[in-house]
């Protein structure tokens, strides 16, 4: 397999996913912020709340409209560029995506019309219900695609059928309620809530800077500040849980994220650190620190809730550690090759009608299937993900997350103490936080997706086995096409949003999108 084909196919998928994720988190979070604002309107009867709700609804509508259907391209890519994978995952991916489609269509499409067109046409309470249902629908749509993604990180509830070469779902609830799926859904949507809160505070700060729409800005900051702060607490909880799940189910990703080469008890967490530019030649993919600031015992505690716990490093996970009962990757590769050979024997025996041989091959395949994907690796070092990107992405995400907590606290303090006037330092900082919020969520995906390389399905299928036999040139062409299309869409989104923000709620665009 041409390595450049794999790289271009991955780059193409990453590009599409990154651009798609520019639109999604704001939709997820802003839908709830709007619902809170409208609830305030219904509870108080204050027309200012109605005006505020309509204003943010307009920005929500712009983002929703530009972002809609950008995710479809990811599904095209599955069928074209990742056909082996698409076939191999079978109905496990199909079922959640079908449910997503139905939910998105019925919930979002129906009630979004009531939300935008229904002012003064339906009852106030029905309108409010529609706004909440749009928020619920958008978030439920995200649930299904995130369940599918979580299954790739932690395949559960399925059985491999060698006759069809597909994984078949044997337990839908195991797929839906796998610990990784629940955590991934919560952590990801919460990142959208935090991003939307930062967005609302940033835009509100711009109005305060321009000495316009003070009431709108202050009330919006209040709602977004409370929502963002509460969600930041939850995101810390789910992020912490995510680390434990990763340490348990994807230990190599965890070790890469921490650049932990040698396993240890009382493992410290590197709070800040810089890695040498060049890889050390001493051991493959060993990355050395130029400097690091550590929190003692914290990594052991974070991974296993025990400061004495042993956290395996990359060396342990790749070369094995008999003392800690860690299997070397070479042994996993052997098991994987046994499974693949058993699949071959099974197919041949089935064709020749040798039932005894096919039965024994099937037993061997089933016994080794959880290492199936290792059989495709050239050597043990291929099981190590890119360390630098995973390490830095994690720290940027977490660092920015704490910065947003500070933003929410300060914005709430300023609003509640009525000290928002002439705080230029705050206005500028809050505006600058908007792109940083997008950066933080993208970094989260980097940790999740780059950190699990080489796997497209953890331990079961590497990207090298998943990719379709296409020409590299054709993938390059579509990569460029996407880059152009999505960049145009993103520019359009930003331009229309900026125009609407500059117009503000007074000059129109408030009654209908």
């Amino acid at each position: 397999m041409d390595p450049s084909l794999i790289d271009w196919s991955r780059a193409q998928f990453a590009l599409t996913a990154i651009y798609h994720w520019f639109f999604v988190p704001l939709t997820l979070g802003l839908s709830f912020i709007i619902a809170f604002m409208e609830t305030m309107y219904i509870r108080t009867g204050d027309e200012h709340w109605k005006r505020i709700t309509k204003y943010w609804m307009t920005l929500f509508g712009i983002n929703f409209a530009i972002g809609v259907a950008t995710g479809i391209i990811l599904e095209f890519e599955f069928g074209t560029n990742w056909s082996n994978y698409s076939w191999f995952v079978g109905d496990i991916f199909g079922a959640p995506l079908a449910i997503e489609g139905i939910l998105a269509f019925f919930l979002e499409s129906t009630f979004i019309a009531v939300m935008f067109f229904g002012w003064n046409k339906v009852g106030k309470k029905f309108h409010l219900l529609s706004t909440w249902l749009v928020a619920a629908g958008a978030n439920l749509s995200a649930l299904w695609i995130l369940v599918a993604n979580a299954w790739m990180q932690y395949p559960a509830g399925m059985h491999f059928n060698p006759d069809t070469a597909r994984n078949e779902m044997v337990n839908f609830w195991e797929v839906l309620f796998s610990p990784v799926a629940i955590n991934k859904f919560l952590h990801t949507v919460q990142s959208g809530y935090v991003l939307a809160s930062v967005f609302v505070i940033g835009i509100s700060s711009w109005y305060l800077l321009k000495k316009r729409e003070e009431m709108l800005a202050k009330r919006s900051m209040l709602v977004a500040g409370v929502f963002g702060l509460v969600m930041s607490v939850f995101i810390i909880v789910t992020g912490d849980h995510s680390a434990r799940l990763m340490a348990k189910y994807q230990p190599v990703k965890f070790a890469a994220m921490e650049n932990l080469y040698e396993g240890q008890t009382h493992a410290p967490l590197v709070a800040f650190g810089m890695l040498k530019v060049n890889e050390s030649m001493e051991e493959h993919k060993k990355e050395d620190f130029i400097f690091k600031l550590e929190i003692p015992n914290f990594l052991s505690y974070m991974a296993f809730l025990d400061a004495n716990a042993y956290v395996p490093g990359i060396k342990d996970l790749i070369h094995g550690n008999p003392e800690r009962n860690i299997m070397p990757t070479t042994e996993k590769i052997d098991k994987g090759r046994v499974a693949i050979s058993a699949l071959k024997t099974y197919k041949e025996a089935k064709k020749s009608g040798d039932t005894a041989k096919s039965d024994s091959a099937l037993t061997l395949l089933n016994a080794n299937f959880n290492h199936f994907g290792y059989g495709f690796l050239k050597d043990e070092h291929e099981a190590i993900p890119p360390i630098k990107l995973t390490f830095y992405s994690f720290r940027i995400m977490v660092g920015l997350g704490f910065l947003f907590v500070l933003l929410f606290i300060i914005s709430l303090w300023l609003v509640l103490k009525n000290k928002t006037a002439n705080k230029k330092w705050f206005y500028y900082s809050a505006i600058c936080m908007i792109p940083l919020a997008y950066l933080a969520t993208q970094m989260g995906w980097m940790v999740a997706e780059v950190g699990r390389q080489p796997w497209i399905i953890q331990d079961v299928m590497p990207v090298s086995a998943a990719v379709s036999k296409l020409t590299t040139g054709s993938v390059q062409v579509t990569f460029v096409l996407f880059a152009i299309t999505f960049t145009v869409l993103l520019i359009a989104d930003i331009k229309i949003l900026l125009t609407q923000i500059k117009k503000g709620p007074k000059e129109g665009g408030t009654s209908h999108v």
Partner: protein
Amino acid sequence: MNLLRRIFRFYYDGFMSMTIGRSLWMIILVKLVIIFAIFKLFFFPDFLGSRFDKQEDKAEYVTKELLNKLP
């Protein structure tokens, strides 16, 4: 019938009173045309679907692919 008429009026009035929404719908339509009539049609054929009609043949192909990828 009255209900259907009311639903129609609801959407009709909503679309007619749109401001920025008209541009957004235009963007959505252009985007959908690009995605489905250009990308899907010319650049993203169903790799297996365009080569094989039967499910068994697709399974056979993917199995062979997997076995051939053994280093």
